[in-house]
């Protein structure tokens, strides 16, 4: 059975989704989804261990060897991401029952969990596959279920956010499809490793250059890289709270993964540098993303929306790491993928708890929250500290590695700008802290602390934020090796 782990990783949630629909009752559907997600997490742990000890695994679907059939190819990079996605899904799902019960209409709750499982299966499918066209198919599975999940938000603006995302997402997916088609025309294959071998021969053609451009732009739309980020704040702000926590912790990570996979594995590490200064472009866009999104975040009156803008800024940091093009930069990006999932998971889950009790996440409504919901408020503060990059949190680790990587390349202005960007994060987190801790709650408010079932997973994430900020051995060694492997593969 161990040899089937790569495919079980994906088909488990995939087959659980229709079963969940047949089950019907929301409570049952929640339990079933949680169990499935937990099992997926277990599988991803086993996979990571297996890859760590024995090297990459390849699995031929249908028994047809690649490139004729579709291949699942698990190396350190995607094993690491599979673990991030499935574990975050599990933790967030653990705390969502009350939140979903409060925010989603009763007769739609089962469909909510079905969509959740489909989205999880889609994301895991993108990560696990070694076939370029299969990426497109599973991208659409995850996208369509994401549109559904977002549209289930209470506000009517959720519908508009979902529609906007549908249009942008489909354009992005179609761009990727064009890119894949052009690559196929030039090489005759769809398998990623096969493409990596055959593309260098035709790398000088303008067709391959265009293919690269289409794929990168398509992925960046999905990634919400500045200036293609306009769909993200709305989508995150109006989706049901649990969905925001899930998407923020996983979906953008998968998009970054695609960017890394296509740039480094498929096209080769030094392909992008040939014709256009892609690296510099990435660094510039990343910096602009950090500053513009952070500034906008400071102005928001809704905290959920502010943190959503902060996601755009954080994606900026990841892209800077990529743009450096060095092993250290790549490692910083990979580390930040992991760490950002932890902190955004914690922040959005604490906001979900607030929304559950207060029915709102507007700044003005949070006055004196620390007296009413001390544990939730404390979780938000710790998550915020991690976001800023205070020592002893995971945020510090990512910033540390990123700054070291920039200095290694002699780009000290970039390093300074990264640190200044962190100060902006201090400002938008501090606004919230000030209101929560130094203002009196309205006398009439009868709000009580969030239920244990929400607090427990929330604090699990907070503790993870601190634990992995101190004991960095696991993520650091995995990302270091993954980064080496990526750069080695390209040569």
């Amino acid at each position: 059975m161990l040899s089937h782990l790569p495919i079980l990783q994906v088909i488990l949630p995939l087959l659980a989704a229709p079963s969940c629909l047949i089950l019907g009752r929301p409570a049952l559907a929640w339990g079933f989804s949680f169990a499935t997600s937990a099992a997926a997490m277990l599988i991803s742990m086993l996979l990571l261990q297996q890859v760590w000890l024995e090297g990459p695994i390849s699995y031929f679907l249908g028994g047809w060897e690649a490139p004729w059939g579709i291949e699942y190819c698990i190396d350190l990079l995607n094993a690491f991401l599979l673990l991030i996605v499935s574990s975050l899904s599990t933790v967030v799902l653990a705390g969502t029952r009350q939140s979903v019960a409060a925010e989603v209409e009763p007769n739609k709750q089962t469909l909510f969990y079905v969509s959740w499982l489909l989205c999880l299966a889609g994301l895991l499918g993108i990560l696990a596959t070694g076939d370029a066209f299969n990426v497109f198919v599973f991208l659409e599975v995850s996208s369509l279920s994401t549109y559904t999940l977002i549209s289930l938000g209470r506000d009517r603006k959720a519908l508009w956010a979902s529609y906007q995302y549908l249009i942008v997402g489909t354009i992005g997916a179609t761009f990727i499809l064009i890119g894949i088609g052009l690559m196929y025309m030039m090489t005759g294959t769809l398998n990623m490793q096969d493409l990596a071998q055959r593309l260098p021969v035709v790398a000088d053609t303008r067709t391959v250059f265009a293919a690269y451009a289409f794929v990168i732009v398509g992925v960046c739309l999905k990634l919400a890289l500045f200036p293609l980020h306009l769909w993200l704040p709305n989508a995150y702000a109006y989706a049901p709270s649990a969905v925001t926590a899930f998407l923020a912790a996983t979906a953008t990570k998968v998009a970054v993964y695609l960017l890394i996979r296509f740039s480094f594995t498929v096209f080769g590490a030094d392909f992008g540098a040939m014709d256009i200064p892609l690296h510099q472009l990435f660094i510039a866009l990343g910096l602009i993303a950090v500053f513009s999104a952070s500034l906008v975040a400071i102005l928001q009156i809704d905290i959920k929306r502010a943190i959503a803008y902060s996601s755009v800024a954080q994606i900026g940091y990841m892209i800077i790491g990529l743009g450096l093009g060095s092993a250290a930069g790549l490692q910083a990006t990979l580390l930040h993928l992991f760490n950002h999932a932890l902190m955004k998971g914690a922040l959005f889950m604490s906001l979900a708890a607030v929304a559950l009790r207060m029915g709102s996440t507007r700044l003005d409504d949070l006055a004196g929250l620390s007296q009413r919901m001390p544990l939730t408020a404390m979780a938000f503060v710790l998550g915020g500290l991690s976001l800023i990059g205070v020592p002893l949190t995971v945020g510090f680790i990512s910033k540390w590695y990123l700054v070291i990587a920039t200095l290694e390349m002699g780009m000290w202005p970039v390093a300074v700008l990264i640190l200044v960007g962190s100060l902006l994060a201090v400002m938008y987190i501090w606004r919230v802290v000030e209101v929560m801790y130094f203002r009196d709650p309205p006398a009439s408010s009868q709000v009580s602390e969030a239920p244990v079932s929400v607090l427990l997973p929330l604090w699990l994430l907070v503790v993870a934020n601190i634990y992995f900020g101190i004991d960095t051995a696991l993520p650091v060694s995995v990302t270091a090796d993954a980064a080496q492997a990526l750069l080695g593969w390209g040569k």
Partner: protein
Amino acid sequence: MLIATAIGIAVNRDLLSVVMLSSIYGLLSANFFVTMDAVDVAFTEAAVGAGISPLLMFTTMAIVGRYEKLPHRWSLSALVLVSITGALLLVATMDMPAFGAPDAPAQQHVAPRYIEQSGQEVGIPNIVTSVLATYRGFDTFGEVTVIFTAGVGVLSLLMVGDRATKPLSSHLLKASQHKILRIVSKVLIAPILLFALYVQFHGDYGPGGGFQAGVIFAAAIIVYTMLFGLDSARQVIDQAWVRVMAAVGVLLYGAVGVVSMVNGGNFLDYDVLAKDPLHGQHYGIIVIELGVGITVAAVMVLIYFSFAGRLVDRGHQDD
């Protein structure tokens, strides 16, 4: 022709004609696919581009209104963006292998094996079906999941609760007053269903297969709904049952994969389903095509019921 139609769509402000044109566009591209030897694709494009998609758009239009409100203004930024994309594609065509060249890389590397060996390895004449169901069977599994996902999404967006159980008489979609239409269609529905079954199981030999069959099957039910009203259709076909069928199709497909894993092969390896690999391939393909057909038909019916349900409810609000 295609371009002319597309321009027509761009400048027309009456949504009805836009949708009509888009349906023509679908038919034209289906025609084009036939000349490109892609008969399976043509079949599907005809069913989707000229069938399902305009049908859903008409239904939507009946709800949201027919005319665009605002006169169109040329948007400079959009033009620039579009031109850049177009230019990029133009650049891409520069170094492309010539159209139809047999020595183009696309024709060289992976594809020849499908053409030369699928006869022995899979044993059915339609290569497209071989590739679709076996070599790239997992893509098709993903495709069924996409359909299922869309069904779940539409259901969650347009669910009307249990109001369907109320005895409503919908006059909006009812053409049952037309005696001729009614009789002709009654006569037609049975053959359509039969044709669906034919397409379902004939996919091995000619163009066709689970998806097309599912669409045709759903079309029969949609015709019935149009004629006898949504409520009588809902009486014949229980919506909860359709929902279960949509899930069953995906599960059936997955089950084939799981069975082949239990039998010692990889996921979706049909060789191990029977003693003779060729028989195994054949069983596997029949069952997964059936799974595709069931899910597609169920989801299409579900989507149409959801759309039409909104329309009927609207009709009652207006009364």
